[in-house]
């Protein structure tokens, strides 16, 4: 039911793991539904220099997680926000219809991690301001 590209991505997932002291982190999904994805990002000057994931889920969830991390490394955060689940599926040359929802997980996790990154950035600048103020 899966094409070879999806099977390969599932069999040899890239970027598995967690980045310590990540600049952005996002976890989406829940165990009851059967899929959870956690993504951590290392970001320098708004460019994603590294991304790692951990996923609890089916083969499609793991394949799309791996693919999404590969796609966003090297992108600016704005570019990464444009990576939709449709683009991930396109990169994998398609998923079975009942599996499309699994690819949404990756898109949501990226968005959440970037949101987290931006919140942290804001807090940092707030910290700086307060230091200067003092």
């Amino acid at each position, binding site marked *: 039911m899966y094409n070879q590209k999806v099977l390969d991505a599932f069999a040899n997932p890239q970027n598995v793991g967690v980045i310590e002291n990540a600049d952005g982190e996002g976890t989406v999904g829940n165990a009851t539904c059967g899929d959870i994805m956690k993504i951590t990002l290392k970001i320098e000057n708004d460019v994603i220099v590294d991304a790692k994931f951990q996923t*609890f*889920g089916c083969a499609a969830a793991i394949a799309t997680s791996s693919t999404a991390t590969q796609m966003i490394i090297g992108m600016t955060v704005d570019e990464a926000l444009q990576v939709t689940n449709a683009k991930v599926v396109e990169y994998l040359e398609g998923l079975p219809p009942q599996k499309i929802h699994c690819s949404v997980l990756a898109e949501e996790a990226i968005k959440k991690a970037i949101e987290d990154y931006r919140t942290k950035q804001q807090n940092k600048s707030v910290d700086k301001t307060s230091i200067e103020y003092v």
Partner: protein
Amino acid sequence: MRIYIDHAATTPCDKRVVEAMLPYFTDEYGNADSQHYFGRDTAKAVADARETVAGLIGCKPNELYFTSSGTEADNWALKGVALHNRHKGNHIIISAIEHHAILTSADWLENNGFRVTRLPVDSTGRVSPKDLENAIDDQTTLVSVMYVNNEVGTIEPVRELADIAHKHGALFHSDCVQAMPYIKIDVKELGVDLLSMSAHKFYGPKGVGALYIRNGVKLDKLICGGGQERSQRGGTTNTPLVVGMAKALEYAVTEMEENNSRIAKLRDRFVDRVLAEIPYVRFNGNKEHRVPSVANFSFEFVEGEGILMLMDFNGIAVSSGSACSSGSLDPSHVLLAMGVPIEVSHGSIRFSFGKDNTMEEVDYTVEKLKETIAKLREMSPLFNLKTGGTYNV
């Protein structure tokens, strides 16, 4: 290397069975209802097959009706009895862990005005006779509970349940599809009024099953057509498959004891090793009332489809009760009915051994299973949350 550990899904057709079937495809091809030589020839083969199967389950030949599958037999039993008896009552009772052939037939009846009660099971998958006592009423016309569950291999107390049904004037049907290869059936001893079977579960061909209907039990027809099967089930009798089913059941029964003890040894070694060598694993089933073939496990923190596929990459065929492989979004109704937490049920795999598996295959499967679970857990945020990532097989 290819290892098949999915015998509850289907079994290979025994070569001796194939031999017995072959002449009826090409040489003895007559329609069993034709009056000429060709027809008489195959009619004799069908009659012999019917007599054989009937003899092996302790019924009369005229109580046995050939069908296209266990699913058809289940549909016929449920809908046929419920519809025929609707003037007497509109209530039927099944268990919550039935095969989909029963579950969805019951849904169909429910959508057509019948009341359906689905009996719960305990944590090992057993129906309690007490629950049937409480659920049955004077509107109940049929109770249907499977003899052996297909996902966890638990044997149900069919005799007790049948007695309760009869005490209240209801008929009793049992889906015995998963029981036939491992338990010698006697319909009288079992106390059933109707019983479904399917040949491909006992090393026979796919596409043929049967429904036992005790003489005196009346039910509506499902397949209307010609005068086949005593005018109760239309469609030209599939001579080769019917012959194959009889042959397969003959072997299944005569070789049952030997097969059962061989298969149980494989299963026991497998279960012992998995429980000893893989952490965070849950055995699903009943350790006393069970068939020798099935071992169902939930591996925590991972999802079943991933396990199934990595095992498949290693040449090992198993089955997953997880939502993701079944195409629906709901995990196994059997495990949920047994109270397995939903997040744990996602990581469930059924291993079902057969007569041709070997101890070497069992050991190889355990090794590959350990690798597979470790690999998926390394990727799992749940597992790392639970253990802090310190996991070694």
